[in-house]
């Protein structure tokens, strides 16, 4: 749901990268399931709904579309503005949707699957399954245990920072492990007149990242997933622990958070007016100057309760779904799904975007240092969350929870806010 808030800037766009470094990858190596698809699907016609409307995303999209054409697919592309695509998804899927379309893992995928608006693709996974780890397999299944989703790329959330700003202040990012370390570092930056944590929540969704982190660092991953799914009540005292921990870093966050979008906050980082930002790694796309980008690094969100350490991370997965219309064009649609799951797809995009991160485990590891940090971060974690608005009900995340977080950031009483959240959850129609 967060896309709706984005004021035209897509957060989901594949991480834009301008650093050269990773070698170009040849297409036509191990294509796995797609090779047999190749022979059988000469000139197979498939319609594709794409929400990749950002310039960088269009570039990536065109790269793999060319590869698919070379592999014998005749793709009828229906590219829609990213926000429009999100806003109209319900009507789109119920009307005459394209066979294959861009979507996300998590509850938002499972929701459409359970409503019968998508086509299950167990047979595709029989071909491509060996190229994905268990985490991706689980993230691609509906609530009924069937496969629906083909994961392509992902990006983690973490504490982004500038190496030069940290060096100038004498703060060592690798030593920021605990909450106390984090606050101590914040104090150093504040004393120097630098905003410690750049923070924007004008769109309402951005703060969910910080909430998720503090919540599963404070109460554990299981509690977090139970809370997003409504199995634990918002009135649970543990929710207050999360809010209180968050309050302890309020003095170090941007004062104008409610008047800044995420990219306004990232601009503070780029201009060296802020030291850190809790953000998705896609923010790197806003660092246009290669020197700035080379200065960007990340560290895992600090530990709060040692019992949970830094075992969890947010790393939303992007990919594709088959709509119900794919059932009528099954062989071609599924062949395309297999192609998207193969390294042929990823390699084609990797040529133009060498810093992108891939779900397919046969893809070579990135050589770019920032991209490698992201891979290491996620590999070091036991649990991966998708982000609040992908893990929870859309009708709760976007209008209700985002408003509550804004009230909390504006200084609202967290007990009253939690009570109100539970009352509104209870009033939602059964999912």
């Amino acid at each position, binding site marked *: *749901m967060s896309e709706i808030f984005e004021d035209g800037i897509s957060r989901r766009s594949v991480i834009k990268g301008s650093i050269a470094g990773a070698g170009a990858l040849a297409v036509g190596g191990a294509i796995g399931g797609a090779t047999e698809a190749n022979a059988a699907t000469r000139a197979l016609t498939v319609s594709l709904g794409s929400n990749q409307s950002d310039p960088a995303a269009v570039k990536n999209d065109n790269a793999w579309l060319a590869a698919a054409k070379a592999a014998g697919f005749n793709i009828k592309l229906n590219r829609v503005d990213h926000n429009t695509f*999100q806003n*109209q998804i319900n009507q789109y899927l*119920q009307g005459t949707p394209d066979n294959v379309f861009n979507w996300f893992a998590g509850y938002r995928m499972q929701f459409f699957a359970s*409503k019968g608006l998508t086509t299950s693709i167990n047979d595709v996974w029989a071909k491509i399954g060996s190229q994905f780890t268990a985490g991706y397999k689980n993230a691609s299944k509906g609530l009924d245990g069937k496969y629906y989703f083909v994961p392509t790329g992902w990006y983690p959330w973490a504490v982004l920072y500038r190496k030069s700003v940290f060096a100038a202040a004498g703060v060592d990012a690798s030593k920021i492990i605990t909450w106390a370390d984090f606050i101590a570092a914040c104090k150093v930056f504040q004393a120097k007149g630098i905003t410690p944590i750049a923070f924007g929540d004008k769109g309402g969704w951005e703060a969910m990242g910080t909430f998720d982190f503090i919540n599963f660092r404070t109460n554990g991953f299981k509690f977090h997933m139970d809370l997003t799914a409504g199995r634990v009540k918002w009135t649970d005292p543990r929710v207050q622990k999360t809010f209180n921990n968050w309050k302890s870093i309020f003095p170090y966050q*941007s004062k*104008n958070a409610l008047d800044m979008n995420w990219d306004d906050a990232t601009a503070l980082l780029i201009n060296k*007016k802020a030291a850190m930002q809790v953000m998705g790694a896609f923010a790197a796309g806003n660092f246009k100057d290669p020197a700035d980008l080379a200065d960007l690094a990340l560290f895992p969100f600090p530990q709060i309760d040692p019992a949970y350490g830094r075992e969890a991370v947010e790393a939303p997965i992007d990919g594709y779904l088959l709509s119900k219309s794919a059932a009528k064009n099954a062989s071609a649609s599924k062949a395309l799904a297999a192609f998207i799951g193969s390294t042929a797809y990823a390699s084609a995009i990797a040529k133009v975007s060498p810093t992108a991160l891939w779900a397919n485990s046969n893809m070579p590891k990135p050589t770019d240092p920032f991209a490698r940090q992201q891979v290491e971060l996620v590999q070091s974690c036991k649990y991966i969350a998708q982000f609040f608005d992908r893990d929870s009900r859309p009708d709760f995340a976007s209008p209700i929870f985002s408003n509550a977080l804004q009230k909390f950031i504006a200084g609202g009483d967290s007990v009253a806010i939690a009570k109100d959240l539970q009352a509104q959850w209870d*009033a939602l129609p059964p999912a």
Partner: protein
Amino acid sequence: MSKIDIETKAAASGENLGRRRRSNNFTKRDRAVIAGLVGGPTILHVVFVWLPAIATILLSFCQWDGIGGLHDIHWVGFKNYTQIFTLYSDFKIALRNNTLWLLWFGLIATPLGVVLAYYLDKNLKGTKFFQTAFYLPIVLSLAVTGIIWDYIFKVNGFLNIVLGYTNADTAPSWFGDPHKNIWVVLGIASWRHIGYMMLLYLAGMKSVDPSLREAASIDGAGEWYTFRKVIFPSLRPVNIIVVVVTVIEALRAFDLVYIINRGKNGLQVLAVAVYENILGESQRIGWGAALATILFVLCLGPIMIYLYQNFKKVD
């Protein structure tokens, strides 16, 4: 405007003539043409205005997530309404903001438009220039107006840069305070509304018979007295339009707020709340329909009362 006068007079006289003519002069063909001309638009009106309106009212008593057909729509009675009034905190904010909007337009923006019109009507030097300048904002759609003012007032926008704030984090935040941002938005909305009102009154004042003013000044009436007792009452048709326009503009306020922050952070208005609940992935059609129905009643109430009162006096 005087158009209404003419129309009511025409209707009144047409009725008298028609009664005599209708029985003898209308051929079958005439009747068919009239039936077609009246019936066609009526059918279109009913199909595209009244049926959707009635469907919206019906849906406001239902629960539906926008997926599936009729069998997925569940009747829930007044549940949507009770929840909106008791649980939905945005509703209170929206109601407050729409009320402020109405009061601000009614008590400040519209009277300012009248004052401007009054002075511009005196053909002072440069009247044409000012007339154009004040009217110019109307040429832009509210969406464009919103984008322009958003660029000016946002935290790293034009105004803060002119004021010398280069750090978005320490600059004054015009839209960030949930209790004050509505006033900034009302200021922006007035920028457009005042010009609109000015134009309506200016057109009205041009049509006021100059002899009325002369007579008043010969009788020794002062300027204020003349305006209050002679000019303003003769502008009654304009007043009706102005009241209706002001009420509707205030209640349907959407574009500015939607562009600035989609009704978040204390800036919610009813129209945006309707939109946000009906569109997107998180569809609560029944809830949105209930909000729309509330908005409909709010618009309809005052306008019907006002129109009824005024046209009653005309007869």
